[in-house]
């Protein structure tokens, strides 16, 4: 369909099916692209974070310089895996499938979150966004940004919802893949703790704290805020056009890791992250016709 059809008055005359067809046609222009930027980002980010360990332990870099770099690394470690979770880099059977799985598995290691668990629970989040019992990320729902920060800290304590909601989702799924994801999560968590204990026993507790433990907590808060709380706030409605919002971030689009346009991701999950701003502006009249929450953009 051509540009004149995007006139708001014309869009109002279209049926829901016609609107859906138009939306799909526009979205397809931004899909099916290999996100090489995200691939490079995911792999380079991991290499930089891993390199901090020998650089600090052998005295080539001060711990105080390594700490902000490590924090940035862990904050940046989720999104490349997120592209892989949606098979954007390579679908099953495609030549780049191996790269999709490689990026998915390795990029979130600093976050101590295994790819298989993230993928299964994230797809459930898409299926049941904002559902009080079925959305694995619903624990990020909070009436204000401050309330989110408080509950984020509380939820990450032993037995908190951030610890239990993904396990509960995997148990509910009950598939062999879900069982394998649980085992992977357990193995990764035990490895992480073994590394922290080993560092502490050998007199490197501060190094472990400032390269991994504290950056991981800061990153978990940041990622929870921008990838879950902000785009779904107030997280009270369900439905394709009401469960996610477009919003203006105080720290801009890069500072919020592209989440201002997260509504596009929920409508068309195979559009790469870096294409979502362009897709948003192309689709905006359709989103408005659908009464999507768009605030400040």
């Amino acid at each position, binding site marked *: 369909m051509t540009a004149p059809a995007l006139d708001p008055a014309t869009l109002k005359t279209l049926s829901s099916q016609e609107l859906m067809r138009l939306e799909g046609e526009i979205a397809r222009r931004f899909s099916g692209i290999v996100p090489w930027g995200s691939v490079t980002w995911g792999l380079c980010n991991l290499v930089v974070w891993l390199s901090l360990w020998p650089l600090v332990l052998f005295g080539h870099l001060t711990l105080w310089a390594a700490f902000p770099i490590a924090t940035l690394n862990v904050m940046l470690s989720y999104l490349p895996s997120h592209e892989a979770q949606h098979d954007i880099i390579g679908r099953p059977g495609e030549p780049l499938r191996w790269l999709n799985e490689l990026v998915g598995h390795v990029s979130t290691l600093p976050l101590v979150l295994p790819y298989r668990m993230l993928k299964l629970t994230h797809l459930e989040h898409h299926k049941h966004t904002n559902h009080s019992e079925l959305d694995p990320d619903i624990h990020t729902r909070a009436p204000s940004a401050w309330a989110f920060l408080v509950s984020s800290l509380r939820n990450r304590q*032993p037995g908190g919802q951030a610890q*239990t909601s993904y396990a509960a989702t995997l148990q509910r799924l009950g598939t062999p893949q879900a069982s394998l994801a649980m085992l992977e999560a357990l193995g990764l968590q035990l490895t992480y703790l073994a590394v922290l*204990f080993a560092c502490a026993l050998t007199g490197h*507790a501060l190094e472990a*704290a400032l390269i991994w433990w504290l950056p991981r907590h800061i990153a978990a808060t940041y990622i929870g805020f921008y990838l879950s709380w902000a785009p779904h706030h107030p997280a009270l409605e369900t439905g394709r056009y009401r469960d996610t919002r477009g919003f203006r971030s105080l720290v801009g689009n890069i500072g919020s890791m592209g989440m201002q346009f997260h509504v596009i991701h929920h409508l068309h999950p195979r559009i790469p992250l870096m294409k979502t701003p362009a897709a948003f502006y192309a689709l905006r009249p359709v989103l408005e016709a659908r009464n999507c929450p768009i605030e400040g953009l």
Partner: protein
Amino acid sequence: MKFIAFLMRNMPFLFGIGFIAPLIDQTIKQLGVNPAGSPWSLVLGLMIGGSWGVYAVWKTPAQ
């Protein structure tokens, strides 16, 4: 499997004495307020880490 479950159940306590305590000890030593050879920073770390760990295990509902 029972051992893993036991380990995970008591992990907050193990984390408290195995990581938080040495972290407090090494942080205090780094600040230079601990006289050389004195164990009080490690004792303080074990008290804080251990008691936090016990509290966390006690507060965590059994899975």
